[in-house]
């Protein structure tokens, strides 16, 4: 590189040379040699930068700017090559690590203390206890239409109850409606009534979602919905069904259960259900305090009609309760958040034996 060389050509030559060296560098070690040879203390580029001081002042600014651009290009080249070499090394490693995945696996699983999550356990208990009352399990998707989640259930567009639901929305689909993450398991009521002729007797345990996150609310949680549609079903049956369930679930044969008038858009008459407990100690069944535990009521005639069922012929009840809530109460679990943390230590503590599923014969 003589003084007479045009700087542009000189730089282009260095760039081409470095590129060629990089291309020839087959592994990271060779690559590093090129990097040091270019950008290192006595590298080619470093030499040019050092030489800048000897350049006449009138040319220095222009040459300095050009050198800086060159530096950026060279660094880019070097970095790209490193990524490519690393990718290649990873590819090679993955190829070398190839194993025969058709091999038969070991006859036994690694030792470990497995177990069933408390939410899963409660769902199994619910299924056993309501199953004994003749309920079948119905299911529905987590992502629902707003019609099924709200409108079918007599919660029209501007109903104040819609605001109380803290709904998660997904982008609008082809129909222009935004799907929702179901805010309750109740849309499965409508799904069931639209696909199954009465009499109906289903429970719906499942995931539900609301945009609420604090010590006592989780953005995803679980509910169980119950729906009975038949002839001659009354509020008295609703009370009986729930009292029978609550006393069996909490294994307290004389658990006090209180029914209070309330309001839900999808039931009429509506009632909230409290169980007796001791607010101070958390003990269930005694103590004179009341704890709200679930909402229920006779299915609203509009819900029946929205789903094509003539409310003159058929009537029934529905209820919904939080699975986490009844699980925490049953076992005296203080905190909601660890349910979804998958902390090994918490899971081991609260998990139940998969070989001892809930059984009416053995006691829930």
């Amino acid at each position, binding site marked *: 590189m003589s003084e007479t060389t045009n700087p542009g050509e000189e730089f282009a030559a260095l760039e081409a040379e470095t590129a060629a060296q990089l291309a020839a560098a087959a592994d990271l070690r060779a690559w590093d040699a090129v990097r040091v040879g270019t950008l290192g203390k006595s590298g080619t580029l470093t030499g040019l930068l050092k030489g800048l001081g000897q350049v006449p002042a009138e040319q220095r600014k222009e040459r300095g700017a050009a050198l800086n651009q060159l530096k950026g290009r060279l660094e880019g080249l070097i970095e790209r090559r490193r990524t490519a070499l690393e990718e290649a090394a990873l590819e090679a490693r993955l190829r070398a690590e190839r194993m025969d995945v058709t091999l038969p696996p070991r006859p036994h699983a690694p030792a470990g203390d497995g177990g069933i999550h408390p939410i899963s356990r409660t769902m199994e208990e619910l299924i056993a206890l309501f199953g004994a009352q003749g309920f079948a399990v119905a299911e529905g998707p987590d992502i629902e239409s707003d019609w099924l989640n709200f409108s079918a259930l007599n919660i029209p567009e501007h109903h104040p109850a819609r605001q109380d639901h803290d709904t998660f929305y997904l982008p609008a689909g082809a129909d222009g409606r935004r799907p929702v993450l179901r805010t309750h398991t109740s849309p499965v009521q409508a799904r069931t009534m639209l696909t199954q002729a009465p009499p109906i007797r289903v429970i719906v345990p499942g995931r539900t979602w609301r945009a609420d996150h604090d010590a006592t609310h989780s953005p995803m949680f679980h509910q169980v919905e119950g729906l009975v549609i038949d002839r001659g079903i009354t*509020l008295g049956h609703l009370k009986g069904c729930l009292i029978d369930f609550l006393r069996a679930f909490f294994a307290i044969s004389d658990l006090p259960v209180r029914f209070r008038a309330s309001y839900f858009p999808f039931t009429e008459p509506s009632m909230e259900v409290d169980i007796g407990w001791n607010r101070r100690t958390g003990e269930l069944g005694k103590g004179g305090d009341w704890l709200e535990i679930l909402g229920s009521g006779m299915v609203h005639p509009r819900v029946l009609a929205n789903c094509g069922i003539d*409310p003159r012929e058929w009537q029934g009840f529905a209820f919904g309760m939080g699975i986490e809530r009844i699980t925490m109460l049953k076992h005296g679990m203080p905190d909601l958040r660890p349910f979804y943390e998958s902390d090994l230590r918490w899971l081991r503590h609260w998990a139940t034996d998969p070989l001892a599923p809930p059984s009416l014969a053995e006691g829930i």
Partner: protein
Amino acid sequence: MKFPLSWLRAHLETEAPLAEILAVLNRIGLEVEGVEDRGASLAAFRIARVVEAVQHPNADRLRALKVDAGDGRLISVVCGAPNARTGLVGVLAMPGDHIPGTGITLKVGEIRGVKSEGMMCSARELGLGDDHTGIIDLPEDAPVGASYVRYASMDDPVIEISVTPNRGDALSVHGVARDLAAAGLGRLKPLVPSAIAAAYPAPLHWEIADPRACDYVLGRAVRGVRNGPAPAWIRDWLLAIGLRPINALVDVTNLFTYGLGRPLHVFDVAKVQGRTLTMRMARPGESLAALNGKTYALTDQDGIIADAAGPEALGGIIGGTHSGCDETTTEVFIECALFDPVRIALSGRRHDIRTDARARFERGVDPALPAVALDLATALIQELCGGEASEVSAAGTEPAWQRDATLRFERLAGLGGAEVPADEAVGILERLGFAVKTRDAAQVTVAVPSWRNDIAAKGALDQAPSIPAERARAAAEGCAAVEPEADLVEEVLRIRGLDTIPAVSLPVARIVPPPALTPKQARAVLARRVLAARGMLDCVGFGFLEQKSAALFGETPDALRLVNPIAADLDQMRPTPVASLALAAARNAARGWPDVALSELGAAYRDPSPTGQLQVAAGLRAGHTPRHWAEASRPVDAMDAKGDALAVLAALGVPMAAVTVTTDAPGFYHPGRSGVLRQGPKVVLATFGELHPKVRAALDLSGPAVAFEVFLDAIPEPKRRRKGAPDLPAFQPLRRDFAFLVDEAVTAEAVLRAARGADKALVADVALFDRYAGDKLPVGKVSLGVQVTLQPREATLTDAQIEAVAEKIVAAVTKATGASLRG
């Protein structure tokens, strides 16, 4: 909704004690949220007189007081209040008293050398308001030594109830009193309308320019008013429910909002531009400086009240500062209007304005009340502020609200399950304000009171379009026929108490019910149990996670990205539960627990349609197997995950012989250490393998990690076939071992399949008992040790027959895989 007990008693004549009132409120659906009993919490604070107030010897701003506590003692108190003076009668706190405004418990102190044995309190220190300019200054004749809260009539319990969205009428003390009276707790004091003498023509006129903005409005002016603080009873009530008294005219509007559920607005006539107040929709560019101190840019969907200068109020939601009433007001114009609940709700939500007026209008305000309320408000304003009333100015018409509803008495038992005597049912309805129109032995028809827009309400059904027309029509007719009746059944049972309904166990068709789960649902439960029995901990993970993490595990379509995530790291529906488990494993590793075996029976989201939400049994093992003397610890590997997946498939009835392995697993797996389990060429049952090193690096999972997913929806339902008879041959089986030398590219499955197929009659089982690749073998070769079980059926095999079948096996394996028998 909050109200002090004395306010309730102003509307309800009752002897019932507080506890009974609370119990009944709970019973009838007006759930008690809390009771604040200041008579109890402020009982210790006594009225005291300052006998002497002298300058503190060591502090310019303090005074040393001698206070007569009313019990013969003279208490010395150091006080910094500017109004502390000899002769002042105020409120004394003694050591040990909890001061609600500051949260501290008072102790005997010494302030700059002077002992202080108590404290003279300001209103703020007692939690009774904002005033902290000085200590409470009571009239001379206030009884020294008496309880201050009792003297000030603040020992009034304040009840807070939650009102359900259907009960706009219960957002008023009068409405609550009516319900309590209906429940037998006393007598509702009727509203007695006052006769107002109109002294002059209304100075302002209403115009409804757009019926969307307002249905009906009345107004009346009172001139010559002297506005100032409202009397103590009004201020005490408002303070009790957390409202700040402002001046008599404004306080009257709040009194009506809470007392009757009838929001009013008062304009200062002098500040209104022009002589007309117009109800119209706002024009783009208009704004309102509202009474809450904020300015709102209005839209053409907002109904407003405007004068000649522009918007003066967001109708039914909030008034403007410009024309509001203050101490200088001498002529007031009272507005009493009805607004469309939906429009109020939308406007209120659009501007995020929560006011007492909005809460009532969006639930529906009594359409028959405006005239009565206007007269009552006029009378009260005249009583408080003097002045003479104008004629009424009106626009629009009272909306038709009259409806009937019929109750067949037998429905109380038929729907409600309660045997209620007809007289009792009718009595409850009458006390709630329903007027009997006709009645016979079987049924009663009542007129629905104007304030109950939730009974026999109008409103269209929203039927599923898939319902056949005939059925939809019948269902709609049925609904119209029974809905008002259900409303009445609810009213009767609510007031009577649901506890009076006998509980009846649900009848079952058969004492041994059919299974609650379908075979498909039962499979899911079983899958969870199988994995737990294999040492995995069942987890429940959020179905959404951070888009960046989700993208490591598959597609993250926009259609599955939340529009309104609650947190940035919970915005994308997960492509597989493996993603949640991997994050969980990383969290556990960070806590010092790198060895985990986690499973989840959960959803994988592919698209928002119901079929795009798959049910997956997934699992993840990370780290090493446990250390044990009898079994060495080792890193988990892909075979562990394959074993887990196969165990689930086997338990779910998938015939193992039909399962094949391909190596096209998803990209989150190590490409050379993962596989797909298939049944036939199309059905993907499961995937398994080691996690891709890049995925592990991205999640800070430093150790080995393997995972699997079993697609439960893909598993065909096993046919319910009776098992055949077991195969119990009379002859002993023979076992022969073979060592095949194959190229390392040859799969074990190919060798085993060839050996199995070599002689279908004799070969009963084939098992791989050894796999060796190492320096004793040529490069690129593997030795596979295969045990073949031969099961003779006709007779014991001769040596020649055994030799022949062995040759067939070798030939078949060689043909299929190029293997040679290892010497």
